[in-house]
């Protein structure tokens, strides 16, 4: 038994068994993407206000039943989330060291990271409501009876850069860190992140920290903009919000987008793409080529001999850095091209800053790719939660009689998975095109300028969608 456990661990957690998309399906998806893009463009050319129907949303708190239910429901969910948070930390520190027998690995990587992202993108930003870090912090403050924060003002210069840095570290941990499926290591990282957040809340206040520096609040907020439910718990300055809107409507915004927020969104998109990319045969070839090139191989060797990371990890780290930098450069290039083609400045005059808003229009493609990429992982590896619910510490408990339940890998047939994945990505692309057009129509003074400005954006979107489809058509070798 012990032998089996250590062998299972050697394979790494979350092995995926996805079959690559067949060529004809990839071509069909890419073709549909192109055709639909041109159809959309033809429609935009005819009507300037095409897509504005998108903007309507309904305030659900108008209904007294929902108003009365929402608050207690949020309280219950918050309590559950705090209990799960503490339980997860406890299993990580005190439970079994086998990745599959300890709740924390499945909880953090599958249920929380993948599951919460799915929920936030498809339904609404639930993390806003249930995030245990502010809840526990506020409870502790109330118990001690001290002030909530020292009241330092959050440095404006920092903007959302702390969240960008923290998210990069997280992405590195998810994709490259070799201890990412070691329960104790995850628990330590989780506690470190929590301590940092609590420190930040103490210095700058809960809301300031959560709005700008907390990477996860930010990730789920970005995904939640795509969702049909707008969820916002009440803060000292704002009442709670619960509004229903069409998918992707939340991506249309009047707020200006700072460089740091634009960089954050691009970093998110880049890491999701890198996640798929680093399992492709092309990445394998890049790795081989890096070993063949003397200066590169020597640099990697030096780096790995002075650190705890091996050469492959270093190569992956470098590429994980280059991907977001590349995304930012391409986005900047496309923005400049948009302004050039439009031949005029935007209404407010701050052209470059104004075009940062366009990052939102890429989110639907990223969401669709994310859903397609992780759906099978959630449905297969996620099943581990059934036995783990009975035995979270891996100590041989059987609380609900589900211990020893095995995973059914045949739960989704690859064919169904293929069609759903391609349909998702194409639909995401169409939503992205519409969002970009509505944004442009609002920002540029003339119809012609708005229309012309869309050509580079459409080229970027077709490229991004085709890249996403291409990755799914690659066999997984990682």
């Amino acid at each position: 038994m012990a032998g089996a456990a250590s062998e299972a661990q050697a394979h790494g957690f979350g092995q995926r068994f996805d079959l690559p998309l067949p060529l004809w399906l990839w071509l069909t998806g890419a073709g549909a993407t192109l055709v639909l893009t041109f159809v959309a463009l033809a429609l935009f050319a005819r009507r300037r206000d095409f897509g504005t129907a998108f903007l309507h949303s309904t305030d659900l708190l108008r209904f007294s039943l929902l108003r009365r239910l929402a608050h207690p429901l949020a309280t219950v969910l918050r309590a559950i989330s705090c209990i799960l948070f503490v339980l997860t930390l406890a299993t990580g520190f005190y439970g079994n060291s086998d990745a599959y027998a300890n709740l924390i690995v499945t909880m953090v990587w599958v249920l929380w990271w993948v599951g919460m992202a799915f929920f936030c993108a498809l339904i609404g930003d639930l993390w806003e409501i249930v995030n245990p870090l502010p809840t526990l912090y506020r409870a502790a403050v109330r118990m001690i009876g001290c002030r909530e924060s020292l009241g330092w003002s959050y440095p404006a210069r920092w903007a959302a850069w702390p969240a960008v840095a923290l998210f990069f570290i997280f992405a590195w941990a998810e994709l490259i860190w070799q201890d990412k499926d070691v329960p104790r290591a995850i628990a330590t990282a989780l506690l470190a992140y929590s301590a940092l957040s609590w420190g930040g809340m103490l210095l700058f206040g809960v809301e300031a920290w959560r709005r700008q520096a907390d990477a996860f609040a930010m990730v789920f907020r970005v995904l939640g903009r795509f969702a049909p439910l707008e969820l916002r718990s009440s803060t000292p300055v704002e009442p709670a919000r619960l509004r229903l809107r069409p998918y992707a409507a939340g991506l249309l915004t009047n707020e200006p987008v700072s460089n740091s927020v634009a960089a954050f969104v691009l970093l998110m998109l880049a890491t999701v793409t890198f996640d798929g990319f680093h399992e492709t045969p092309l990445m394998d070839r890049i790795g081989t080529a890096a070993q063949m090139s003397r200066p590169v191989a020597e640099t990697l060797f030096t780096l790995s001999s002075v650190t705890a990371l091996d050469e492959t990890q270093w190569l992956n780290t470098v590429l994980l850095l280059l991907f977001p930098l590349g995304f930012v450069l391409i986005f900047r290039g496309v923005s400049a091209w948009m302004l050039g083609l439009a031949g005029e400045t935007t209404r407010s005059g701050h052209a470059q800053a104004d075009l940062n808003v366009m990052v939102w229009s890429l989110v639907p493609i990223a969401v669709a790719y994310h859903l397609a990429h992780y759906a099978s992982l959630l449905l297969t590896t996620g099943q581990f939660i059934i036995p783990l619910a009975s035995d979270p510490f891996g100590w041989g408990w059987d609380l609900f009689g589900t211990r020893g339940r095995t995973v059914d890998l045949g739960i989704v047939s690859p064919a169904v998975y293929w069609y759903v994945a391609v349909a998702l990505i194409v639909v995401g692309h169409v939503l992205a095109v519409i969002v970009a057009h509505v944004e442009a129509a609002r920002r540029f003074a003339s119809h012609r300028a708005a229309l012309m400005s869309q050509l580079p954006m459409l080229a970027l979107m077709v490229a991004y969608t085709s890249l996403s489809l291409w990755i799914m058509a690659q066999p997984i070798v990682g």
Partner: protein
Amino acid sequence: MTDRSRRRLIAWMAAMALGGTAVGAEASTQSFSIQIVGGRVKGEETLKVRKGDQVRVSLTSDQPMMLHLHGYEIEAKVEPPAPTLLAFKADLAGRFPVHVHTHGAGNHRAVLFIEVHP
């Protein structure tokens, strides 16, 4: 839409449907012979079969090793020079890696993949 373009569309859709269903038509026995040298497979690293096929992979290696077909959770011990047979019914679709089991941490790249198409 003209008659001709409609006919063409129908033909195209039929071709698509056939493309989708042709795989998985009838089950049969698929035999492969795999030679591992220095921990790497000589030749094609991905074996493609159809769901329902009876799969027989005969493995030889220049060094003793323990192979593990992930997903199906089947193990095969290979001892040179005799070939070892990895036989199973492909009743689960997907792309399944065959790993070499080594003790301790380290790089455990898959040596072989078996793709079971629906």
